[in-house]
């Protein structure tokens, strides 16, 4: 009987009090757990700023887009934008977790967890916003420190109660045409004070957020123009960090940019899946600064991962060639969803399709890099062969080329000539020859001709070779002995041509001095 009563009581209580499904400790998982790199938290707020500016531009054509301002100064970090601003509804939703009505195709942020991530870095979050056309402003205050205290002290209380108790929304009057949002992350937590490192933050922002290209980059305006032309709804906005403008990074010594559009399929009417721009190192091989090399994926002009991600995903062979270039791959498929920390994409069909289709970018770049490498090598070989031939030719003319070296010289020149001829043939056989190829063919023919002429001259004018046994009075026995020594030296030093020549030269001089 007692048991029955107790059960009834419990049932009644359940009927009056709604069950709790989410508890406070989830806060930790959604904030600190999601973003091991705390700079991503800051990026979440900057994403909101960009979304607000994007909406302002979309709804008010010709509106003045002011730079986003970030002020990092102990004990807080402030992010200010003059985007469209937030309405009362949005400001109230600011306190919700996992709630977002943002259209994923039009906005960068869409999960509704970005703002709450702020509690991972700050003890208090204060947000003030006024929406264009609304003569009010709203202020949300999230007391993160007290929330976490309560989670610890009260053994994981329900999340709803926590959010209700430690968040607050106030309203005030504002000018109707005012539009702005100021986020203040107050009292940055001790374990995330690395966020105060402005240089580090600058580096992170320039690689990740949609800031313009550095005007110091010679191709900045050209690339910007191509992106505006080819990437629908392309958006970039200036950003100032502690008064300093932030620009996308670049590497100086590069060739003119190239562009690759990638379509959803090979059909002529399929839409654009990605638009890639890249520049190649003007010097040999990889760019020196690795962190600024490679292709970076961009979704809504925000970076996803770094140059290593595309290198891993797209370069099946010769991955080292990924860093011969730097550039961006702007992805236009709305089904592609970056992970929360934007270091990769969610694993779905869109991602597989994107990898599959974008591999052609890597193939093209790899081919270019291979071709460029082959051209460079050919050029080097030509120069080397030309040098060898010229030097030996001079020695032969001056009568200083030792008869003992004749076979070695012949062998070296023939070998170089064979190499030149084979590369020349390959280059001549290429279906598409660029200016560099044409230049190499011209130079190759000339060098091959010189080498052939030299070999013929060497054969024809063997009498011009210097023979010390004939140049100085020497007995037959002496001659035999000298030739024996030379033969031994040639055998022993056959792999060290330079040393052999040096030793023979000295021996020849000593013999000449001794016998003359």
């Amino acid at each position, binding site marked *: 009987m007692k048991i029955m009563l107790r059960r009834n009581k419990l049932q009644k209580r359940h009927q009056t009090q709604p069950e709790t499904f989410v508890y406070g400790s989830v806060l930790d998982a959604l904030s600190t757990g999601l973003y091991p790199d705390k700079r991503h938290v800051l990026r979440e707020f900057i994403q909101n700023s960009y979304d607000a500016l994007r909406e302002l531009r979309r709804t008010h054509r010709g509106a003045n887009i002011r730079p986003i301002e970030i002020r990092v100064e102990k004990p807080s970090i402030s992010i200010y934008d003059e985007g469209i601003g937030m309405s009362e509804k949005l400001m109230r939703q600011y306190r919700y977790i996992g709630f977002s009505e943002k259209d994923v195709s039009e906005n960068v942020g869409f999960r509704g967890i970005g703002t709450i991530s702020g509690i991972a870095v700050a003890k208090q979050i204060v947000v003030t916003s006024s929406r264009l056309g609304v003569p009010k402003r709203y202020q949300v205050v999230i007391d993160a420190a007290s929330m976490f205290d309560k989670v610890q002290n009260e053994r994981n209380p329900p999340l709803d109660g926590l959010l209700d108790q430690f968040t607050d929304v106030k309203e005030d009057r504002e000018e109707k045409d005012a539009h702005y949002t100021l986020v*203040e992350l*107050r009292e940055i937590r001790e374990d995330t004070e690395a966020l105060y490192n402005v240089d580090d933050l600058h580096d992170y922002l320039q690689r990740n957020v949609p800031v313009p290209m550095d005007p110091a980059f010679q191709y900045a305006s050209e690339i910007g123009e191509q992106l505006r032309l080819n990437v629908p709804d392309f958006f970039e906005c200036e950003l*100032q960090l502690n*008064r300093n403008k932030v620009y996308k990074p670049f590497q100086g010594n590069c060739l003119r940019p190239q562009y690759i559009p990638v379509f959803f399929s090979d059909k002529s009417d399929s839409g654009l899946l990605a638009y890639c721009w890249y520049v190649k190192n003007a010097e040999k091989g990889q760019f020196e600064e690795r962190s600024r090399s490679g292709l970076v994926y961009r979704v809504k002009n925000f970076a996803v991962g770094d140059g290593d991600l595309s290198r891993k995903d797209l370069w099946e062979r010769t991955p080292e060639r990924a860093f011969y270039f730097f550039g961006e791959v702007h992805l236009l498929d709305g089904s592609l969803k970056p992970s929360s920390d934007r270091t990769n994409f969610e694993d779905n069909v869109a991602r597989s399709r994107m990898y599959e289709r974008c591999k052609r970018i890597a193939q093209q770049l790899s081919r270019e890099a291979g071709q460029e490498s082959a051209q460079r090598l050919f050029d080097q070989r030509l120069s080397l062969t030309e040098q060898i031939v010229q030097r030996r030719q001079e020695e032969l003319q001056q009568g200083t080329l030792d008869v003992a070296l004749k076979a070695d010289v012949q062998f070296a020149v023939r070998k170089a000539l064979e190499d030149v001829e084979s590369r020349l043939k390959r280059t001549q056989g290429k279906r598409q020859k660029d200016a560099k190829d044409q230049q190499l063919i011209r130079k190759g023919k000339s060098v091959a001709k010189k080498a052939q002429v030299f070999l013929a001259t060497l054969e024809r004018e063997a009498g011009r070779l210097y023979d010390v046994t004939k140049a100085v009075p020497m007995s037959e026995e002496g001659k035999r002995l000298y030739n024996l020594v030379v033969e031994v030296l040639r055998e022993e030093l056959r792999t060290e041509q330079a040393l052999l020549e040096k030793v023979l030269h000295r021996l020849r001089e000593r013999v000449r001095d001794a016998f003359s």
Partner: protein
Amino acid sequence: MLSHDKKPSRFTKNKQVVRDLQCQNIVQHFNDRLGNLRYFGLCSPEMKDVLDWAPLFASITAVERGVSGEEYRDQHQLLLTAARERILGKLTLLRGDIDAVLLSGQDDFGKPIAFPYDVISLDYSGGLFYKENKEEFKRLKAIQASIERQAACNFPCLLFISCNLDAIDEGEVKHTIENIRTELDRYGWNGQELCNAYLVHRNPVARLRLYVPYFVNQVAAKAHLACESERTISYCGNQGVEILNFRFYLKPDTRTMAPRFPQERLSQIINAPLIRIENGRQLDETLNLPKLRVPDNIRTGYKKVRRREKGG
């Protein structure tokens, strides 16, 4: 040149006159560095004190305490004002009570004050004789600390102080005026008559306009700063509150190790009439106080010294 020339004033008519006079001082003393000046002060969450002058400054250090328990509101508002006015990048916000900040050299979060400044504006909303633990004149000590910290950097500055007549410590003021009387008597001047007039005057403005410049002069001299006091301004502020405004130009004076007597003469401080501002108009106001009568021979001596100082 300044934006308030074009925009409607943010201040009452009277306060605007004070602001104009202060601005004249800034231009007069720092004409060649306008645009690169450094400001330190209490500029309020709406930053009224500094917005019109913002083009003059390369950096603005604002101190804001906020309302107890909700400190973040005013501090956040100040950041918002700065951002909306495009001066967020110039702003350094020190969070805490300005007196505590000046005394400790850092704010509540350990952020240090980066002296020197060109303009130090202590626009107090209350009186100067505020005591925290019934013994310390915290505000006066803070003013003293600001002068000393500035002096340590060996850099000239303008010091603006505004206060009302709240909680004047008559004992402190009376003793100081007694000291002035002793000093004047020592030189055989009309110290008795003059100081009595100040002590019995029914308007406390009379005593404060003597006390504050004397205090600043003495502190500055001790810190090896020469002080030039501008005429004290009195006006009626919001809700009929009587406000006094003081302006000083302090410049390094390190010719000797031993501190010098204040270079500014007592007669200059005492005899300069107040500027009384009413309905936006400036009036000379003596408060019917007697002037300090400097004997002719002394005056001549002073003139000689002045001529010598000017290189005449």
